[in-house]
C-alpha cells in the first residue's frame, strides 16, 4: 500500500517518510536558511515537549513540516550526545505514533504497518462481538511480556486458533516499545555532520533542559523485618524444616545476595531442609551469585515469575503495583494505601450508609459491559 503525506505526517518513523524527505533534497546546511525556520522550530519543539511532558504534540495539519522536522529533531538529539535524552525522546515519539494508530480508522494502514514494519500478519474482522484484530500468540507474548498489569497476561485475553483477539488500542500499545527501539536505533546509527551555528544554540538549550539520568543502586539496604512476604515465607518454611520449592529457594538466594548477604550467610539457613547437602547447596548459591558455572549473576525473579511458580504471597497493600520483590516498600505510603482499595471502610470510621451503598454498587459493577 502507498502511504499518502497525511499518513506520513502521522507515522514519521516509517522508511517511506525518510524517502519523502530525501526527495525534497534537504541538506544540513539548508537548515540555517530562513526557508526551513519552521521545520527547525518544530524539530526543537518536538524535543522540548519530550523533555518536559514526555509526549510530542499533534501538528499534522502542517504535513510537510511535520514529516521534515522528525529527522531534524533526531539530529538535534544526537548532537546533545545524551543517551538518556535519546531514550526519552524516542519514547515520546513512540507515544505520539501510538495515539495516531489508535485513532486510525483505516484498518488496512494498521495491518500494513504491522506487516511491513514488524513482520506480523494480523487478521481483521469487525463483525463479531470479539475484539477486531487477531495476532499470532508468539508475536503477542513477545511484546506483552514487558507489561506489568495482569490484563496483558495471555490468560486474560481471548485466544483461539493460535491467535490472540486484540482491540485496536491494545494492539497499538503492544508495539510502542518497538517503535521506541526503532527510533533509538536510528539515533544510534545516525552519522552526525557538523550542525550550523543556529542549531548549535538549540542543542545547548536542550542539554540545559534535560534532567540528569536516574542512578541505580546495585545493593539494597533492607532490614529483615522489611523483607517481602515471599522471602519471609521461604525463610519460615526453611526454619520449620519443610521443603521449600525450587523457586522459593532461588528467590531467597537471589534476594539475600541482593541485600548484601554472603554465600555462607545463605548456606547457613538451609541445614534444616529435608534434602540438605552442604556442598550441593553451597555450589548452587555460588552459581546464583555468579561465582561458579557461567559466571552469570542471577537477578531476583519478578513477581510475575513467582506467581507462575505459585510462590507469591502478596500483601494486598504493600505489594500494590510492585513488579519485583526488590521494590517491596519498607513503609506504607498514603498513596499506596489509597490506591490499593484495602481497608477503605477502616480508614473512614463511622462511614455513612450512603458510602457503604456506593461501595456495594462498585462491588457489583465489576464486569465490563462493553466487552
Amino acid at each position: 500500500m502507498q502511504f499518502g503525506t497525511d499518513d506520513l505526517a502521522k507515522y514519521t518513523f516509517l522508511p517511506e517518510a525518510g524517502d519523502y524527505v530525501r526527495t525534497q533534497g534537504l541538506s544540513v546546511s539548508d537548515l540555517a536558511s530562513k526557508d526551513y525556520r519552521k521545520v527547525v522550530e518544530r524539530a526543537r519543539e518536538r524535543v522540548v515537549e519530550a523533555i518536559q511532558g514526555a509526549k510530542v504534540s499533534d501538528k499534522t495539519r502542517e504535513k510537510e513540516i511535520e514529516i521534515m522536522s522528525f529527522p531534524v529533531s533526531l539530529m538535534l538529539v544526537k548532537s546533545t550526545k545524551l543517551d538518556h535524552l535519546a531514550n526519552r525522546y524516542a519514547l515520546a515519539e513512540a507515544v505520539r505514533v501510538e495515539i495516531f494508530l489508535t485513532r486510525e480508522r483505516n484498518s488496512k494502514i494498521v495491518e500494513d504497518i504491522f506487516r511491513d514494519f514488524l513482520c506480523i500478519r494480523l487478521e481483521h474482522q469487525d463483525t463479531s462481538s470479539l475484539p477486531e484484530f487477531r495476532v499470532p500468540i508468539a508475536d503477542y507474548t513477545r511484546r506483552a511480556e514487558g507489561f506489568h498489569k495482569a490484563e496483558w497476561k495471555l490468560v486474560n485475553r481471548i485466544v483461539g486458533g493460535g491467535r490472540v483477539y486484540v482491540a485496536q488500542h491494545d494492539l497499538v500499545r503492544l508495539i510502542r516499545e518497538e517503535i521506541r527501539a526503532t527510533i533509538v536505533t536510528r539515533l544510534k546509527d545516525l552519522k552526525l555532520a557538523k550542525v550550523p551555528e543556529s542549531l548549535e544554540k538549540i542543542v545547548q538549550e536542550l542539554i540545559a533542559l534535560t534532567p540528569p539520568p536516574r542512578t541505580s543502586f546495585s545493593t539494597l539496604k533492607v532490614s529483615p523485618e522489611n523483607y517481602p512476604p515471599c522471602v519471609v515465607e521461604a525463610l519460615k518454611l526453611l526454619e520449620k524444616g519443610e521443603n521449600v520449592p525450587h523457586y522459593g529457594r532461588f528467590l531467597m538466594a537471589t534476594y539475600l545476595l541482593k541485600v548484601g548477604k554472603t554465600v555462607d550467610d545463605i548456606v547457613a539457613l538451609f541445614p534444616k531442609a529435608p534434602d540438605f547437602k552442604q556442598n550441593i547447596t553451597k555450589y548452587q548459591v555460588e552459581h546464583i551469585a555468579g561465582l561458579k558455572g557461567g559466571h552469570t549473576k542471577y537477578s531476583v525473579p519478578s513477581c510475575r515469575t513467582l506467581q507462575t511458580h505459585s510462590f507469591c504471597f502478596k500483601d494486598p497493600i504493600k505489594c500494590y503495583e510492585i513488579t519485583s520483590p526488590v521494590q517491596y516498600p519498607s513503609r506504607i505510603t498514603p498513596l499506596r494505601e489509597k490506591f490499593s482499595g484495602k481497608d477503605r471502610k477502616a480508614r473512614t470510621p463511622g462511614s455513612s450508609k450512603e458510602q457503604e451503598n456506593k461501595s456495594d454498587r462498585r462491588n457489583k459493577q465489576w464486569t465490563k459491559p462493553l466487552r
Partner: protein
Amino acid sequence: MDETSSLMVKRYFKEYYFRNSGKIEAPSEIEKREFGYFPFGGQMIRHLSFKDIGSFRALLFRESPAGVYCSNSLYLDPTLEMHKKQWIRAEMIFDIDADALHLPCKKEHDIWLCKQCGKKEFGLRPETCPNCKGNRILEMTWACPNCLEGTKKETFKLLDFLESDFGVSGSNIRIFFSGNAGYHVSVAGSSFESLDQRGRSEISDYLTAQGILTEMLFSPRMTPSDPGWRGRMARYIRDLPERTPPFEGGTYDLRIHELANEFTKSKADKFLTQSVSQLSVKIDPMVTTDIHRIFRMPETLNNKTGLVKRECKDLGSFVPLAESIAVPGENEKYQVMVDLCPKIHLGGNYYGPYKSEMKELPYYVAVYIVSKGAGKFLTPAPELSKMSKNLPQQAAAK
C-alpha cells in the same frame, strides 16, 4: 541402593537395551541436541552430543545408564557450557504428574519417612513425626491406576487447549507415558519453538489459569461458542446441572444475567476459583518454562520404576502399567525383601501391600519395587553371584 540390588537393576536395564535399543529413534537434528545420562551409582553426565543415533545406541549398550536424557532445545554447540551453547529454539514440552493432582488415593499409597528416627508409614506427610516430633520428613509417592487415569484426563484437557486455543495441529503433538507417574507432551514444529522462558511462562500460566482475572474473563456478552477461556467458562456455566450454587437460574442466559448483574465481585471471584480448578491443566510450570532442560528420552527406562517412557499412539486405550513394562515375563522370579510397599498393579496383576516381608516376584515387579526404594534384592541372578561385579560391563563390551 545396596550392591546386589544395583547390579540386578542394572542387569535388567542392560537386557532391555540389548533387545530394544533399535526402537530408540533419533530426535530431529540430533547433532544440535544436548544429551546426558545417569550411570548407576554415579552423577549426571551432561553436555554430550551425538552425530547419529548409532553412536548413541553404542553408549546405551556400553553403559546401560539409569536414566537417559536429551534436550528439547537445539544449540549451535550443545557440548559447551550452558551460557556458551548458543540456543536456537526448543520444542514446547509439558509434564503432567499424578502428585500435582492431590487425588484422595494418595493417602492410601504414599509413604512418609522420618529422616530423624527412621519411622515409615502409609499416608500423607505429617507436619512432625508422631514418633520423635522431628520435622525432617521425606515423602515417597506412588502412582496407582487411579492416579494415572487422573493424569490421562489432564492430558486430554491439555490436548484440547493445544488444538483449540493454540492452534497446534495434532500431527505436531506427541504424547508419552513418563514411565512413572504421568505423561509428557511435546509440541514440535510450531511458532512456539522460538519462545523464550518468559513467553513459555505465559503459555504455562494460560494453561494453569495463573493470574486469571474475574473482570477480564466474565462478560455479559460471553457465549459458549467464544474461543479460549471465555468460551470454556461459558460452556462450563451452561453445562452445570440445575440449581447448582452459586446460580439460581436454570438456563444459560439467566445464569449469565445473574453473574453480570447480581454477583458481587467476591462472589464472582469465589466462583472463578472453584471453576478454574476444574478447567485448568495441572502441568508442572518448571518443565514448560525451562529451556535448558534435558528431558527423559522416549523408549528409555525410568530409573524410578524400571518402566519405559513410551509413546501413546492412542491415549484413550493406553494402559500405562501394562504397556510400559520393559522386560515382561512372569517366569523369571527373584527374592526381594520388601520394606514397605502399597498395593501395586503391574502387567495386569496386583501385588502387595507388603510390610517387612520376603517375596518372590517377577523380575519387572522386583525392579519396580526396588527402584522405588521400597525393598532390596536378596538373591542375585546366578551369573552375577558367580562372577565379579563388573560382569555386566564386560558382557556389553563383547
